């Protein structure tokens, strides 16, 4: 998370941005990263920690895609953490994309979000082959940030 904020900090300096409003991550369920842990680290490192709480919104369009918001209460400054208050009002958005796979034998695309979801081992619903190629769900990406 420290590295993520460093990247945003450097980019904001280049772009002349003094207030970051949003930091958006893409965190696949197979990435090994926990959105809750990332949110906690963000609050501590960005200096937005407080009784902000967590909002979990249903992300469009699949039901298994969720966005987790971590709003920092206005007024708390990120003093002492780089340019004064750069992240003081920043909100962390985490997009959790569904796990999607492609069968190596028959090419069928399947995964979370299908009417009949995949089995625990992600075997192909069409031909029963195991060990598919995973198309999404491994992401751990800093997607964008917004500021002014």
């Amino acid at each position, binding site marked *: 998370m420290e*590295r*993520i904020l460093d*990247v*945003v900090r450097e*980019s*904001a300096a280049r*772009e002349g*941005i003094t207030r970051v409003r949003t930091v958006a*991550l893409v965190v696949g369920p*197979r*990435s*090994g*990263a926990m959105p809750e842990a990332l949110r906690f680290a963000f609050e501590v490192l960005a200096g937005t920690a407080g009784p902000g709480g967590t909002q979990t919104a249903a992300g469009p369009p699949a039901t298994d895609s969720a966005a987790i918001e971590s709003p920092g209460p206005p007024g708390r400054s990120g003093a002492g953490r780089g340019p004064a208050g750069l992240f003081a009002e920043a909100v962390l958005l985490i997009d959790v994309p569904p796990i999607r796979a492609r069968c190596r034998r028959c090419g069928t695309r399947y995964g979370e979000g299908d009417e009949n979801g995949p089995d*625990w*081992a*992600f*075997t192909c619903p069409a031909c029963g082959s*195991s*060990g598919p190629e995973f198309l999404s769900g491994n992401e*751990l*990406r*800093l*997607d*964008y*940030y*917004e*500021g*002014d």
Partner: protein
Amino acid sequence: MRVKLARDILKANDQLANGLRRRLTSHGVLGVNLIGSPGSGKTTLLERTIERLEGLRVAVIEGDIATALDAERIERTGAPAVQINTEGACHLDANMVIDAASELDLAVLDFLFIENVGNLVCPAAWDLGEDVKVVVSSVAEGDEKPRKYPAVFQKAAACVLSKVDLLPHVDFDIERFRADAALLNPDLTVLPVSAREGTGVAEWVAWLKDRLTAKRQRR
């Protein structure tokens, strides 16, 4: 204003890992990343493996949250060992491994074993520059490990099923374990081993030597 970055957060780690992998390849060294729960028998397996690899040159990088106990055990076998203490981190990353490897002469090695921090979750996500990941799972832990921790079984080339001398004393369905592991990863080689009694160690060592030979032939 929205600034699109699309930055892969693990990219820095993966680039370091690829650099180490190239160095290992240039020296003809096989890098093996051992991943397993605490107490699954990773260090004992390494002790028996080093004895059986007599004549081949082995070094070990040991990852633990604290203490140098495992590196001390490895050094008693005569193999060089470097201990990494992660001081809380639940996995090794490529940067830590490169630091540790700088204390070893890679040019004189055949095998570099990296014993990861005892954990079946996070180590699966971090590339250390190894050629193969090997998951160590003991029969005492239960036969549902592939179902509970699929990622590490999907990414591993082999699974050492350790402590098989305990099979008469535990409720462990080895056929269920094999079937689940094969469903997750049809290419996974499952090697039942008892480091204590020596069962299966020869097959495991033969698998390692085959991988080393295959790597050197590809060069």
